[in-house]
């Protein structure tokens, strides 16, 4: 199991608030890693540090290293656009662009200089297939993406993220607004995607973390309390705080 992201002594402050405290963790390649913990524990903040989505937050201060295949993504010489191409993100709420399904997918590749129609057609089909939505949309590619259902929009957003051929997909509560059927589809999708990609997901749904992740990280008050194989965390967690949280004996 090789490491794709190696986080070392990561600290993050929002102004005076110390939101991430000395995080050290190695995210394995081609696996699903789930980040769990109560609201405000730092898991989404942590996820965003993995592709520098916190850069734009006013008053944020970040120390420590996030090594992507050995390269520190916070090194001043690193191109942030390149980082976000390699490490894509899907958010809690589906956010398709107000354009056609086809153009939603083609947007990223075009930004990265792909103009060939044949090439774009190929990318659109492949990524929509990868995101398990091709069959549902293949006859309406020119229709507005906003006409899709919530679950379809979310899978479209995953396809859009895949269109620029990332290495890693960050998912921030990407199923929390979906019905059980759409959630099931995205969970299955995540499990298929790990053959080609590495998935890191924030989830409030403990059963979801138990069901689909290989590794699990428990955050509390900005600390990474426990990082272990998911089976182990949900059967015999090491830290009492983890056990208290996942069994609902918290607060």
């Amino acid at each position, binding site marked *: 199991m090789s490491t794709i992201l190696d986080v070392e002594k990561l600290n993050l402050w929002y102004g005076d608030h110390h939101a991430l405290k000395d995080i050290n963790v190695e995210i394995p390649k081609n696996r699903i890693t789930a980040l769990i913990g109560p609201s405000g524990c730092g898991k989404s903040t942590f996820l965003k540090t993995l592709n520098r989505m916190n850069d734009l937050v006013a008053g944020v201060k970040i120390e420590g290293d996030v090594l992507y295949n050995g390269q520190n993504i916070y090194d001043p010489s690193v191109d942030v656009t390149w980082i976000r191409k390699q490490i894509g993100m899907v958010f809690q709420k589906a956010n398709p662009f107000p354009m056609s399904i086809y153009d939603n997918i083609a947007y990223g590749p075009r930004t990265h200089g792909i103009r060939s129609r044949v090439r774009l057609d190929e990318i659109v089909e492949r990524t929509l297939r990868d995101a398990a939505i091709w069959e549902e949309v293949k006859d309406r590619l020119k229709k507005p993406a906003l006409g899709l259902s919530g679950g379809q929009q979310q899978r479209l957003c995953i396809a859009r993220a895949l269109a620029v051929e990332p290495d890693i997909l960050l998912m921030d509560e990407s199923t929390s607004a979906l019905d059980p059927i759409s959630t099931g589809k995205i969970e299955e999708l995540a499990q298929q995607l790990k053959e080609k990609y590495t998935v890191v997901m924030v989830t409030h749904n403990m059963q979801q973390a*138990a069901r689909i992740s290989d590794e699990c990280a428990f955050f509390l008050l900005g600390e990474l309390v426990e990082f272990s194989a998911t089976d182990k965390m*949900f*059967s*015999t967690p090491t830290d009492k705080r983890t056990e208290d949280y996942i069994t*609902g*004996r918290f607060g």
Partner: protein
Amino acid sequence: MRSVYMAELEELNKKMISMGMLCENSVAKAAQSLVGLDRDLAAEVVAKREEINREEREIENFCIRLLLTQQPVARDLRMISSALKMVTDMERIGDQSTDIADVVRASSLQKIPEGLNFREMAESVIHMVTKSIDAFVNQDAVVADAIISYDDVVDSYFDSIKGKLVGLLKNDKSDTTDMLDLLMIAKYFERTGDHAVNIANWVIFSVTGENRGVQGK
């Protein structure tokens, strides 16, 4: 804090204690009926069998409902799944007692020959049953481990009784059917000890997550 859930886990504990007490009583009364050759008491043990079976089904349903509605994890998942496995062994303990009582009731035995340590064997078995349920309720792996070792005591009583019965049969003065009845009873007690060991193993799983499997049948 999930207070309804916590109350349900406590309720499960109470149900396990209640079924455990029925099992202990069943073994104790079966032993008493044997030692005193009390056929009425033996009939009483047989009559109680259905009550134990009913408790088993009740606990199974309760555990399944907890799994469905509370989706337990970690120590709760281990505890509930252990309970679900343990009740099968507890029900079997009830069956073994009933089998003992059934033999006592139907046998023509007038007197238990001298030197057969049934009373001591029964006391050891009851000790194992009681302690295994206690270990579950207190989630105590140390006590569970002690019960597993203690099974050797019960096994040695069985070997001793079996040896003496063979001797009695050889000297040709004893009734063969009676002796075989007593051998079966000794075996039922010995099996009851094995079920207590299984319970103890599930307690260890519940506390530590280590699954050691169960005693061979």
